[in-house]
């Protein structure tokens, strides 16, 4: 029991530290690609600390749900962070929640975020919630197919089992089903974290913003919590993609040596994936809202093909 709490605490600290760093690095990388200097890598930390010190304005029409939502978003993202194997194959809480629990915890966070958006009573919140729920609804089946493909290999939805099986079968990720599943999950990752082709995180233009519209009314510490939660969710999803398809470097036990090695490999892998995402962001323009389902349909087809290929090859 004590070991469990220690491992959870360690992983929690890791998650809290790496999440803003990762979003900061992605911002600077994007700026560099657009030949701009861009903010320094630690800008995300400074933003969060600034927001924590600021005063807060709560809309008159809002109810208790408006103030509960930031906590729910942050807490669900953090809990999911503890369930996913980052540096070691068995994540601290993997015994208590598999990949389905991860997906549905994120859905719980999104559910409350949408309610928070609508609670403010302005049309921006409704706009954002409607789009967010629609896109996530369309993305869900594709994500589930990709997850099923991977879960079938390990015949279990427990993330540690999947990681152990993936580690033991080296070069398994070259199998066509794994590649197709990776492609499907990558598109879903972009849709879920609100990157460019689906949603533009940097803008406040009503036509294009989805995630930003929901948190338009938030300010001060609540906004800090939600931003922190969003960055953790991004980190968690990227880790899920990385550690299920490219699991090498995951240490099999929680020894100091294994952890440091795992951490190094983990950071390198995350950087590579970040580069890939940023590459996609800079080379693509944002899709019109009613083109996004076609993109997600493509990912659904990838998922289905991945499933069939596990059966064929």
């Amino acid at each position, binding site marked *: 029991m004590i070991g469990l709490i220690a491992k959870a605490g360690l992983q929690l600290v890791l998650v809290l530290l790496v999440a803003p760093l990762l979003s900061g690095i992605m911002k600077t990388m994007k700026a560099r690609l657009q030949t701009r200097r861009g903010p320094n890598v630690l800008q995300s930390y400074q933003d969060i600390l600034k927001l924590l010190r600021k005063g807060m304005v709560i809309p008159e029409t809002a109810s208790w749900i408006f103030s509960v939502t930031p906590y729910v978003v942050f807490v669900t993202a953090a809990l999911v962070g503890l369930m996913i194997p980052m540096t070691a194959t068995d994540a601290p809480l993997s015994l208590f929640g598999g990949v389905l629990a991860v997906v*549905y915890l994120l859905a719980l966070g999104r559910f409350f975020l949408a309610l928070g958006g609508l609670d403010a009573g302005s049309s921006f919140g409704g706009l954002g919630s409607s789009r967010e729920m629609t896109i996530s609804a369309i993305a869900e089946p594709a994500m589930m197919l990709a997850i099923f493909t991977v879960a079938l290999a390990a015949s279990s939805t427990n993330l540690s089992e999947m990681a152990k099986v993936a580690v033991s079968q080296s070069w398994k990720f070259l199998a066509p089903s794994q590649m197709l599943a990776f492609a499907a999950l990558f598109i879903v990752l972009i849709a879920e974290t609100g990157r460019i082709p689906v949603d533009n995180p940097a803008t406040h233009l009503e036509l294009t913003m989805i995630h930003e519209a929901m948190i338009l009314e938030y300010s001060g510490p609540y906004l800090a919590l939600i931003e922190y939660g969003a960055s953790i969710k991004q980190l968690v999803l990227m880790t899920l993609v990385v550690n299920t398809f490219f699991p090498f470097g995951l240490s099999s036990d929680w020894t100091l040596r294994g952890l440091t090695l795992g951490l190094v490999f983990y950071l390198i892998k995350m950087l590579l994936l970040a580069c890939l995402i940023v590459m996609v962001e800079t080379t693509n323009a944002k899709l019109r809202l009613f083109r996004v389902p076609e993109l997600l349909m493509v990912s659904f087809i990838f998922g289905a093909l991945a499933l069939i290929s596990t059966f064929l090859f």
Partner: protein
Amino acid sequence: MNTLPVAATFTLSVALYSVGALVSLASWRKPALCRHICCGTALAGAIFGGLAAVFGILQGTAVRWSISSGIPLFAYSFDYDALAGFFNLTLAILAGAVSIYSFSYLKEFEGKRNIGFFGFLFHLLLLSLTIVFTAANALLFLIAWEVMALAAYGLVTFYHEDRETRRAGLLYIVMAHIDAGCLLLGFALLMQVSGSADFAQFRTAAVHLSSSQQAIAFVLFFLGFGIKAGVIPFHIWLPAAHPVAPSNISSLLSGIVLKAGIYGMARIFLEGLGVLPSWAGLLVLIVGVGSAVLGVLYALMEHDLKRLLAYHSIENIGIILIGLGAALVFRVAGHPQLAAVALIAALFHTLNHAIFKCLLFLGAGSVLHSTGSRNMEELGGLIRPMPVTAFCFLIGAVAISGLPPLNGFVSEWLTYQSLLAGFGVTGGLTRILFPLAGSMLALTGALAAACFVKAFAITFLALPRSAESRSAHEAPRSMRIGMGCLTGACLVLGLGATWFVPVFDALTEQLLGPRVGTNLITAHRWVLSAGTPHGGLVSTSVIAIALLLLLIPAVLLVSSAGRRFARRRGPAWDCGLPGLSEHNEYTATGFSKALRMIFSVLYQPRREIQTVFDVSPYFPKAIRFESEIEPTFEKRLYAPLKDLLLRFATRMRAIQAGSIHAYLAYIFVTLVLLLLFGVRP
């Protein structure tokens, strides 16, 4: 185990229901007294029913007893086994909550409506449901089944003043009678094979069923129970009938009366017909997936709170059928373990759906009770005047969307696990069908979440959109208690799932053979496993505790940042326009617009905008906006069928055209034909 008084408590509960029915009918002249009697006896009956169910489950072995009646082949014989116990437990929980809720809900009837008649029908419904779940004689089952349909019809058309209610009631009773007809044929076929009318004989005679007889019986029973459960092609009565009923009744209708169809399927498919071929299981699975997806898609477009919930019943019945279909396929593929897990998923979701659907309907009922309107576009901002109802509705919404740590998530998680297990075990087409069903289940879950964000937010959050919602007041105490009990049940079943699962052991052992409950719970009692050696694990209780623990860093983060932060309430951002009113808020139509565009192939949306202007079209005085989606099933399938039938009937009327010569000619021709052809040996 000493023999628990199952028969005694059961007969006491039946007696209470019957006495309650007669007494409330007798005392219809004094409404106040009648209201208390009606709800009191119903509550007492529910409590004893619940006790009987708990004893039945704890007892483990089936208890049988019967009273003979004067009529041949027809005996009042009951068989209280695990399956009957489980469904009676569901009925008891719901009946208890609804009776408490009705204490004050019926107060508004006192002046205007006949509470005695309502009480009579209410008790008749509960009585017939109890008998349907425990009948061991086919004839008694059919009689209780139709009495349930008739009582439900009486309650659905309780407000029989407006045409819509009458039409919906008639549609309900006609469909109910069609499914009773199918069951009649099915049972007659089984009785002919087994030679007697009680279910025990059906079980033993199931092996003599030839494959064609089995197929015909399966189709008849699936048709009969499918219509009652409201699966997709036969669902049109459900969104028509449930909203027009009084709210406490529509919660029972959606909660438990639909489950009678599920009980029938479980009883007959798993026991009555022997081992069904795999195409039967696949058919149930496919119909389940269809009902789930189409049910939620139609629910998304509804702006009437109770119609939305009715469509969601179709969706959840679909999810239950997915579990049941998977169980049938596993059984015929020779994997009783997996079949047991799938059956537990289906029946656990039946209980969960009964509880949170009843909670949501009671919530909608209290909204209707205080604002007098069911249309979401006229509601809004009800969380301030009705905090308790809002909280209960929120818990119901989270549960129905299958989000952790509540009970909806646990049963959907079990359904996913059984679908996942299906990949490895079945051959040919089914290998692909199971994961695809899994992805459709995910789509359904996400759309359900979207739908309930819309339902909760538009109804309860932000500014009230109409005078009634401004003048809303909190529901009376007993309605709040009723909802509170069900919210508690959701939480308890969600967090305590691992303690509840062993309840299914006796059930799966009787229906399928293996006792799977134990290995669903791993070594330390907190974690629910998928039954396979190192399969998926989940523990809602640990998740809930972890969520609470993780709150500490969040709160520390927020409060530790230097001096006390200033918190003030100000107007929401209004882009500089003065005064943000409720017209700026997002409406239900707006919220579901995106999905309507994406699934326009299914909806065929139609929009009509009329502007009234005097000088130029650019300065409209009034704009009338009307949008609707196409009711494909009614338009494509049922309306042409009805027209064909009525046209044929009107043409057939020509044979009674009034001329006596024609009448004599009919007899003459019959006589001559018979003479010529009849006499030949």
